């Protein structure tokens, strides 16, 4: 294992420390777009939007649905503090589907202020991400079969 090309990644949520270990690369949804981080990245603080986080390590890759939060990368150590981080098999698909339908209905109303709409938009993204991530599991199991 080439340690020089890896960095320590910590993913912490209010519920638990979701992940702590060495990874090669990580991709996530930052404030205005997706960013990728490799080892020896320059110091960075980025606000995260709800989205899919992909990490690649020597042991294997994994994807998580992560909520709002931020990432701090300093001294080759990344700390992600997010509202939630769910692996494909942890997503509550039913709840996410309901949430999505509900939000889509609410957002079709035209009286919303742009602020309200923005808030709902990210909530909707969060539901969509969860669904997307949960589908990843199914793909994987199909491949396994």
């Amino acid at each position, binding site marked *: 294992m080439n340690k020089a090309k890896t960095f320590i990644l910590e993913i*912490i*949520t*209010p*519920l*638990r*420390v979701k992940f702590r270990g060495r990874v090669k690369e990580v991709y996530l949804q*930052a*404030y*205005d777009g997706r*960013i990728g981080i490799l080892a020896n990245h*320059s*110091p*960075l*603080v*980025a*606000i995260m939007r709800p989205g899919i986080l992909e990490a690649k390590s020597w042991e294997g890759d994994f994807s998580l649905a992560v909520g*709002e*939060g*931020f990432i*701090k990368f*300093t001294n080759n150590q990344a*700390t992600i*503090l997010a*509202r939630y981080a769910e692996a494909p098999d942890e997503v509550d698909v039913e709840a996410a589907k309901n949430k999505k339908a509900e939000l889509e209905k609410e957002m079709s109303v035209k009286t919303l202020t742009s602020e309200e709409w923005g808030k709902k938009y990210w909530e909707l993204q969060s539901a969509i991400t969860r669904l997307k991530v949960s589908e990843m599991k199914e793909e994987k199991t199909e491949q396994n079969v």
Partner: protein
Amino acid sequence: MSDIRTIKRKIKSVINIQQICRAMKMVASVRIRNAERRMMQSKPFTDRYRQVVGELMAQTGEVYHPLMEVRPVKNTLLIIITSDKGLCGSYNSSIMAEAVSYFKEHAGEPVLIKVLGAKGLNYLVRRHYKIEESFKNWEPTFELAHKISSEIRERFLSKKLDRVLCLYSHPDSTMVQKPRLMTLLPLVDIDVQCNAKCLQISFEPPPREALGLILHNYLDVIVYQILLEANVAETGARLRAMTNATDNAEELIDELHLQYYRARQDAITTEILEVSGGAEALRQGG
């Protein structure tokens, strides 16, 4: 003697109560393990969050945020966290005593009140306090913390509130709880620590905005931690109350048993006396 039967009945009912208390003690001891685990698991998050906020403020030299603004206090909001269910000893009453003494100290000021838990609500309603909002059957979830904190945050930012306090019971250890009054807003407890190496950090979005967003969510984190701590304190208080109740019942049963034996012995003695007295009378008569 009918006394024997009464004592017997009493013993039975005390045993029943003891069984209930013991069962509740068992439940509480399982719950406290869960509650403590949850508190410990969220600790890395809150600690790290606090640390990062302090570091970032030091490194960017950005030490002001509207949420940290200290204003002359006109409107105060007090959030009181109590339990929904009773049988937890002095848990609620010690919190309410603290609350009442706060109200007495700040008699002239307008204080808005929010209550979590039915016990605190009932107590205050009975004493005719005006309550702005109450939550019943609350669970220590991040959603609830988010709901509470986003509301007070908005009202603080729009200057409808100048100070937000929270009164809750803090678990000093599993068995010891103490009411604690904490200032939620303005944010005052951030220690801005400067790392020796001040790194050139790039921000996305720009520092002021990014820090704003991070601080914005900081309150959620604090409130969540408080909810978890209050939950641990409540369960701990219940565990202690139920342990005491079980022990007391044990003592009571012992004492009642003694009384029972004594009463029975009395009855037997009286009976023997009657029989021997009767026999004596017969012999003398005959």
